[in-house]
């Protein structure tokens, strides 16, 4: 029920975005009945509430939905299946009592500071955006510098425009989507500037969000200085060399009153850090085993808090599994231990989960370090798969069947992406 919060649950989910809602449903699927979702915003739905563009659900629903539509489907299912969802509530911490129960500390307007007891917790806090400090752009500190997601919230939820003339730094999908959104609202977009020699967004977004509107995309270029005392007045941009160093000789100024930063997302790891979870330095999220359990028993993680996803469909898939495993843990069902370490090899930035068991099939998510076309994805000596194309911006997913693992007696499995020539020879 919406707004209800009891003192005891089987599973408590932290965060009511697509990951949290799917985790709650997954937990019910595993046979538990008392599930709570704690959400700090006034309603569930997560970041999708502000992603009003279409492009969600092609894998999960075989239908192209907007963010709010996708979110609402899950909110309705959670309501129908009697999940308790409390909005305006923030999880401030987690502890374990003497009988092994998890104690979740929740701060909310209605309930004050309360403690909820449960057997398993799923972390689904999503991610946050990298800010100016993270890329250290020199210059002044005027109003008019927004992360793209904040601008998206201001435009799509609150109904205000960030300015009249914007420069966008970073060509990830959020930046591209915001470029179009601003143009449609009559804000001019002077250009999108990208440090890398290629766009970090989907081709489709480059074409439909920039090309359609005549917005220039400057690759291998970055913002090197911000000007303006009270409000942004201009930015200096400069081309960069292969190592990413800007060349001040070739720089130029772009007048604008707004700078949108679309320079990356990082898992929201405050809670994970304060719990002392083992973290993966590459993903920024917790390390997890094949049941998506973190290093703290009974604490699971999924969605953007685990690693930043580009497609919400995979968030849903991952979270359904995390919820199911959390539910099983709450019911004290035991699974065989993981015996295999999964490690990233050539051209693989990271892969998840960090360990595998040999008794069942596993879904593996990974990201490439660079663009390779075509290449072979090699999982130890168990499996080889030819891929036409990989880019860092798009997550690769792969299922390994138990038949393959049953006969695998080593304790370490390495994943490589090996570039091949056009005929498929490595």
């Amino acid at each position: 029920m919406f707004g209800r919060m009891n003192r005891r649950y089987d599973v408590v989910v932290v965060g009511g975005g697509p990951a949290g809602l799917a985790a709650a449903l997954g937990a019910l699927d595993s046979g538990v009945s008392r599930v709570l979702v704690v959400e700090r915003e006034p309603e569930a739905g997560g970041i999708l509430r502000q992603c009003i563009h279409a492009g969600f659900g092609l894998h999960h629903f075989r239908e192209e939905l907007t963010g709010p539509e996708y979110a609402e489907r899950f909110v309705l299912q959670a309501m129908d299946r009697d999940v308790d969802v409390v909005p305006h509530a923030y999880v401030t911490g987690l502890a374990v009592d003497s009988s092994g129960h998890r104690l979740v500390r929740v701060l909310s307007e209605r309930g004050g500071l309360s403690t909820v007891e449960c057997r398993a917790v799923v972390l689904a806090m999503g991610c946050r955006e990298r800010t100016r400090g993270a890329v250290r752009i020199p210059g002044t500190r005027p109003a008019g510098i927004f992360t793209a997601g904040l601008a998206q919230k201001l435009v799509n939820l609150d109904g205000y425009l960030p300015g009249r003339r914007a420069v966008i730094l970073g060509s990830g999908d959020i930046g591209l989507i915001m470029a179009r959104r601003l143009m449609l609202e009559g804000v001019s977009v002077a250009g999108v500037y990208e440090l890398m020699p290629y766009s970090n967004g989907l081709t489709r977004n480059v074409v439909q969000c920039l090309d359609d509107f005549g917005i220039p995309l400057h690759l291998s270029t970055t913002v090197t200085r911000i000007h303006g005392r009270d409000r942004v007045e201009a930015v200096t941009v400069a081309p960069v060399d292969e190592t990413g160093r800007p060349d001040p000789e070739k720089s130029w100024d772009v007048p604008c009153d707004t700078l949108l930063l679309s320079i990356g997302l990082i898992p929201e790891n405050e809670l994970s850090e304060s719990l002392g979870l083992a973290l993966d330095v590459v993903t920024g999220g917790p390390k997890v085993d094949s049941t998506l359990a973190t290093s703290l028993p009974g604490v699971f993680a999924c969605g953007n808090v685990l690693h930043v996803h580009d497609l919400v469909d995979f968030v849903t898939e991952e979270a359904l599994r995390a919820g199911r495993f959390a539910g099983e843990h709450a019911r004290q069902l035991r699974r065989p231990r993981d015996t295999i370490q999964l490690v990233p090899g050539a051209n693989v930035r990271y892969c998840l989960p960090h360990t595998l068991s040999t008794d069942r099939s596993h879904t593996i998510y990974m990201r490439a370090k660079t663009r390779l076309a075509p290449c072979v994805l090699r999982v130890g000596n168990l499996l080889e798969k030819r891929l036409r194309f990989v880019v860092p911006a798009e997550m690769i997913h792969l299922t390994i069947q138990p038949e393959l693992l049953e006969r695998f007696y080593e304790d370490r499995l390495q994943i490589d992406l090996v570039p091949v020539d056009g005929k498929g020879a490595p």
Partner: protein
Amino acid sequence: MRPATDTGRDGVDMYDVAILGGGVVGCAIARELSRYHLRCVLLERFAEVGFGTTKTNSGIIHAGQQTMPGTLKGLLEVRGNAMFDRLQRELGFGFRRCGELVVASNDEELASLAKMKADGEAKGVPGLEMWDAARLRREEPNLSHHLTGALFAPSAGVINPYEFAFALAECALRNGVEVRLEHEVAAIAPRPGGGFVITSTGPGVPAGAPPVEARFVVNAAGVHADQVAALVGADDFSIRPRRGEEYMLDRRLEGIVTRLIFPVPTPASKGILIIPTYDGTIMVGPTAHDQDDRFDVPTTVEGSEEVFAAVRRLCPSLDPRATIAEFAGLRAVSSSGDFIIGPSRVPGFFNVAGIQSPGLTASPAIAVHVTELLGRAGLPLVARDDFEPSVAPPARFAQRTHEERQALVAAQPLFGRLVCRCELVTEAEVHEAVDHGARTLDGVKFRTRAGMGRCQGGFCTSRVMRILADRLGVPFHEVTKRGAGSWMVLPMEPAGEGPEARKEGAPCSDA
């Protein structure tokens, strides 16, 4: 309420003292004067007090052993330092005596530390101790192992300087000082019959408002003090801004050092330091570079390289990639090199100029000193018996224990509504900040820390804007970052109008 001094001593309706500039110095003077039966006004250019150099410095209450003996600043620094425990109890700003270490990396530097210790003791700096390398490593294990020893000064501390200035101004206001914001002093004329006529411009000046008339003027205009003095020809000095860049690092580095870490100073500067701020973050800086512009305070690539190169010599594990925010401030370096405090060649016009570092530390002592000088010049100092030295300290939810938090939420449910997730700031605290004078996003940020954490406002900005709009009774788009010109958003155009029709937010003037 007000005693007979409501009208000026010569029977004309005028102020006893006008303080020009609402930095920490102007605010400290305002509070000090409010102890007496006087009518005072403070004029400040920005939308809130403390928005000049006062909010962009290292936030250190220096012990005093580092400043040249025999200077006015050296004297007021040691005196000022000793006043902070009481001030903290009265005004509730963030302040902690964490102590400071001046570290040496060779014998020559060790020798200059010994001299510094002797000088400091002569000035009355308490508790100075020499530490050998072993002691240093035990107490601060993350410092470079090449360091050979340190001078420890226990009385040094860290402070949230903006909170100090806000509380001083609030206390002064409470005791009857008028605080006029967005008032830029544009002209000062001698008043026939004595005193001055001060004309201000700016969005906070109501149309047709008469100029301020005052018997005494105290010029505490920071880097602009020479320009303000020049308005009446009291400028027998000049100010050169010296920019200092500072870099704020992620909270996860908390505890890497527990005391202030200084290199051995050079004649030009105290060097680049590692500062464990009151709020538990680590800050590194500042640089020191002269510039002409008195408003533009950019950070630079060279500045950041200089800072990190310097601090990594002291503490190798400090990583530039942990930076979450950076800023720069301007020191008001006077042509004399020392503080310039006292009557000018224009009778009744007092300069408090050249207040560079350690101006923050010295500020309460400066205020006492200026008050004495004004008294000597004829300002009647009749103490009020209803002076209220305290203001209510902020709730600081994030620093409370579980039980204290429970009590707060039980008493006020808005403590249960989170506004800033990085720094755990609640809606009740934002309301409290507005009650205490916040009018802008930065005003809320510097009072509550909402937006200062690692997400730098990504989460809280629109919530805080919403609350400010409600409380100030202005539309959402009229909320500013820090006053006129720093508009945040534009309304979507009303149906049928193009983007040209949009008007930017009018300044939200002081209520």
